[in-house]
């Protein structure tokens, strides 16, 4: 009956609708508690209207009971799933987005929501209604506005004209809510796009890099190594007496061999020049008479000394498993140093080589030192002979190697030693 009284009083004020609106607008901010009580008294009608709106908006929910208590329970159930949904979405975001700030913001929002819901037991429906439009889609904004209109109106007949009168108020609220939601949606969209772009770029770069690496380097790397190995093999074949097989030794011996070749070239150039000078002098001799031979010889010597200021100088080494030969030539003097492991006395063979090369032997010294024979020969080159350092060294080395091998084959007892 109290309720009926409320309806009658509101019906009495029907003709003064604008006055009521102004009174309520001025009344509500001054006294918050009375507004709360009024809203509570009107909860029943609001529930019925919301049922209708829910039926229109979501036909699936029509299966649920339409009673007020049932609807209230439904509201609670709707609220909790929303929270769960938010939680799941935040979890997904945490998995997708490594940024921590966004996660903290979401968790803070959730915490505030729970705190707000806790103490306000008297008005749970109103708060839930206010929250739903914010978190949900824009269409829900309209029901809240309709609810506000219903609070001012009392009868169904008066509903339509009040709705028309309050129409201009809807756009600003709707636009405000819409703008907020749109901004959030656009932000989320931008974030998603950025994430997708990042993922795509990362995947593309990784794939391209891997593909390029495999295609470019894998076959080329093997070919490059084989090529490099072949080059070292060729270099080793050029060296006269290679001792070791590792690459550093091959390169070192190549350097020494290049130096030797350069010295040999200089030596030959000097010899050729001397030969030319001698030829010219001899041609001159033919013209001169016999009486002046002595004088012409003196003149030749002077010319030779003047023209050939530089003395002939060359040296080189030869090494093998058992023998080292070192040859040095300065002008017409030759020094030969030989070191050989103790097997046979190499003096006889070296002296034969020296005789064959037409060297005038001047001094010999040598002895057995430990397991080696060491000898030093000093000799002079006879005039007109074509002897050069590499020839002497090659000849001596050849003879010594030959004799050494013969000695090894002759001595059967030392076969094991030679194999080692």
């Amino acid at each position, binding site marked *: 009956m109290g309720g009926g009284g409320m309806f009658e009083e509101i019906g009495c004020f029907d003709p003064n609708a604008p006055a009521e609106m102004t009174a309520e607008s001025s009344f509500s901010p001054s006294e918050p508690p009375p507004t709360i009580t009024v809203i509570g008294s009107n909860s029943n009608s609001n529930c019925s209207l919301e049922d209708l709106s829910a039926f229109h908006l979501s036909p699936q929910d029509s299966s649920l009971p339409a009673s007020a208590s049932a609807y209230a329970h439904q509201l609670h159930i709707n609220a909790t799933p929303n929270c769960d949904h938010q939680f799941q979405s935040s979890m997904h975001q945490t998995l997708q987005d490594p940024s*921590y700030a966004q996660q903290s913001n979401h*968790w803070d929002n959730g915490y505030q929501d729970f705190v707000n819901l806790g103490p306000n037991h008297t008005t749970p429906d109103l708060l839930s209604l206010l929250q739903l439009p914010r978190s949900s889609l824009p269409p829900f904004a309209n029901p809240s506005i309709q609810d506000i209109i219903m609070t001012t109106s009392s009868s169904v007949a008066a509903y339509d004209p009040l709705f028309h009168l309050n129409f201009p108020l809807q756009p600003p609220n709707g636009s405000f809510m819409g703008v907020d939601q749109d901004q959030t949606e656009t932000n989320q969209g931008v974030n998603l796009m950025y994430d997708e772009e990042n993922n795509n770029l990362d995947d593309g770069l990784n794939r391209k890099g891997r593909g390029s690496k495999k295609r470019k380097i894998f076959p080329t790397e093997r070919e490059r190594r084989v090529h490099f190995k072949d080059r070292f093999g060729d270099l080793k074949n050029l060296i006269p007496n290679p001792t070791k097989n590792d690459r*550093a030794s091959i390169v070192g011996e190549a350097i020494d061999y*290049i130096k030797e*070749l*350069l010295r040999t070239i200089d030596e030959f150039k000097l010899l*050729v020049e001397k030969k030319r000078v001698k030829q010219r002098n001899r041609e001159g001799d033919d013209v001169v008479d016999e009486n002046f031979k002595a004088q012409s010889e003196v003149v030749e010597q002077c010319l030779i000394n003047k023209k050939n200021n530089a003395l002939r100088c060359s040296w080189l080494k030869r090494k093998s498993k058992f023998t080292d030969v070192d040859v040095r030539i300065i002008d017409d003097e030759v020094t030969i140093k030989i070191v050989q492991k103790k097997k046979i*006395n190499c*003096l006889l063979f070296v002296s034969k080589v020296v005789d064959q090369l037409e060297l005038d032997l001047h001094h010999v*010294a040598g002895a057995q030192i430990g397991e080696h024979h060491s000898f030093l020969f000093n000799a002079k080159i006879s005039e007109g002979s074509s002897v050069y350092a590499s020839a002497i060294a090659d000849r001596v080395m050849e003879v010594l190697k030959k004799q050494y091998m013969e000695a090894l084959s002759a001595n059967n007892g030392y076969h094991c030693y030679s194999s080692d």
Partner: protein
Amino acid sequence: MGGGSRFQEPVRMSRRKQVTKEKEEDENFKSPNLEAERRRREKLHCRLMALRSHVPIVTNMTKASIVEDAITYIGELQNNVKNLLETFHEMEEAPPEIDEEQTDPMIKPEVETSDLNEEMKKLGIEENVQLCKIGERKFWLKIITEKRDGIFTKFMEVMRFLGFEIIDISLTTSNGAILISASVQTQELCDVEQTKDFLLEVMRSNP
């Protein structure tokens, strides 16, 4: 919020621990051949740089090209040596040179031999052979004789014939005379006087 932070923090902590564990494992299991391998690579690198500095041909700075350029350069040098040697021999093989060379040796030996003999006579040097016993099978040998071509080779052949193993030897020439001083060792016993006479006779005989 608290629950969320609890879920997040352990994951990060575990990741950090994994990273630290990996670093520790790397430090503990360092290869024992690491230093040796570094030295080997450093040695090869230094040698290649030295080779690069000696070769004027520069195609590229990669290792393979360094070796290739060196091979090419050595080939060129060898060709130069061959060409110079051929030129040298061609100059020697000329006919007038051969004629002159044939005449020169005929004159020189006679002059040299006569001069050498005269020098020895002036100085009063006489051919001599001394053989002394140092140990049970060791002897000291001294020979003074006239300088001739192939005299040392002849001496070595005599040593071989007699079965003497040379321990140390010294040969000096001066004023047309040769002094040979040697320590020898024999495997068989021999008579000193007979050997001395034999050596004197052999060294005096003309080839």
